[in-house]
């Protein structure tokens, strides 16, 4: 079986994207707290929902990123 090698740069990028998704989900939760006049403790108590939202965002980014990657490759080929 062939070993799959993930370069450190790719790992860092994925980590940055995941953290970005998590912060976005925290922002959504904070927005909801303000919009629905709920206590700020929900920033912690609703962490489960935040993690789920972050995961959904991360997964939703995949097709967009694939499209972006595809567009880049296509652009390079055209330039060549």
């Amino acid at each position: 079986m062939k070993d799959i090698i993930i370069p450190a740069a790719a790992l860092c990028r994925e980590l940055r994207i995941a953290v970005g998704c998590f912060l976005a989900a925290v922002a959504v939760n904070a927005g909801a707290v303000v919009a629905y006049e709920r206590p700020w403790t929900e920033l912690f108590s609703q962490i489960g929902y935040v993690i789920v939202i972050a995961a959904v965002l991360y997964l939703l980014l995949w097709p967009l990123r694939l499209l972006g990657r595809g567009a880049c490759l296509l652009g390079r080929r055209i330039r060549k």
Partner: protein
Amino acid sequence: MKRERQEESGVDLNLRRFIKNLGYIAGGAALAATVPWLSACTPEKLQEIGRRRARVALIGTGSRGQYHIHNLKLIPHAQIVALCDTYAPNLEAAHALCPEARVCTDYRRLLEDKEIDGVIISTPLNMHAPITLDALAAGKHVFCEKAMALTLDECKAVYEAYQRTDRALYFCMQRMYDEKYIRGMQLIHSGLIGEVVGMRCHWFRNADWRRPVPSPELERTINWRLYREFSGGLMTELACHQLEVCNWAAKKMPQTIVGMGDIVYWRDGREVWDSVNVTYRYSDGRKIAYESLISNKYNGMEDQILGNLGTMDMTRGLYYLEEDRSQSGVRQLIGQVRDRVFASIPAAGPSWRPELRSEYMPHPVIEGAVHVNGGQNMIGVDEDGSDVILSAFCQSCITGEKAENVVEEAYCSTVLCLLGNRAMEERRFIEFPDEYKIPYMKF
């Protein structure tokens, strides 16, 4: 064991706990506004009666009478001294439950007995008014099963007799003493569900409502609920409680009544309907939609008070809010997104879209105390308020104090039941008759 503990304390623990749970001491004034009838049985008054006991006699010892015997045996300030019934098997069964009590077959003999403080009437409906009137005339305190009477004129006669007497009179409107109904009503009157815009009550069963008859000549005696000379059918037997709750919530009486009743399934010689639909309309346009059917039980029993901000399901002790702000912000947001994504109709406005019932989050009226049993029962199968109202009656037998509004509420709900029957019988829209109005009623 429980009985021994209660006897040792000399007071009725059930009643004390109930009143304490309601916060009588802390919020007495607010509570008194919702449930003035509890002012006759405060913890202080309960202390005052000490070890005195009410000597009570039961008239009517069928299933309900025997149920009262079980409850009375748990009330320390109650002593069953006599039993009366014309049907020997019931009398024997009741006597087996309390062998120390005397037995007789003529209730008038009981009423002559000076040793008896109060009587508990659990007879067929047609005997409620005659026995109540005789008992009050004999100077006895009276506890009578609902409904108040079989006819409107009898109701008026009982009400007027009560106005003249200094004796206590209770009708077993147990929802008035049911903790979750009281809590629920406090929440309704505090504006939790907004403006009360309608009431929806139903009672569905799938049973013939019959009891086994040992010989044919006893058919009408045992299955008295099925015959009009004894019973008002589904309205007086079931609707009576529910209509009382509606008026309690609305704080007024309906003015007009229309309905239809039929025998749709149990065509077994019975005279009362097995399917009734009655609409009661208040002067401001609000309505009670009442329905009862005993050949399908899918919907069970429900007393729903509908407000513009929410719904109170009194039977289950739960309420539901139209816009539930008690959920976390992020959950509300997700719900809103979900509704927008899955419920929007791009081609036209939403008015023609069928609005199937949404999933509402239930909130208990009493935190941590709700046990739902398929809509058949409430918080605690045995604690539906029947034991508390009986205990309050026994207390009144000792103190002589009347319970405020109990008779009036029973009168109002019974009259509405009987008017519902009249509307169905005559198949017409009827106005509340002036001759049966009492000062307590607000229209």
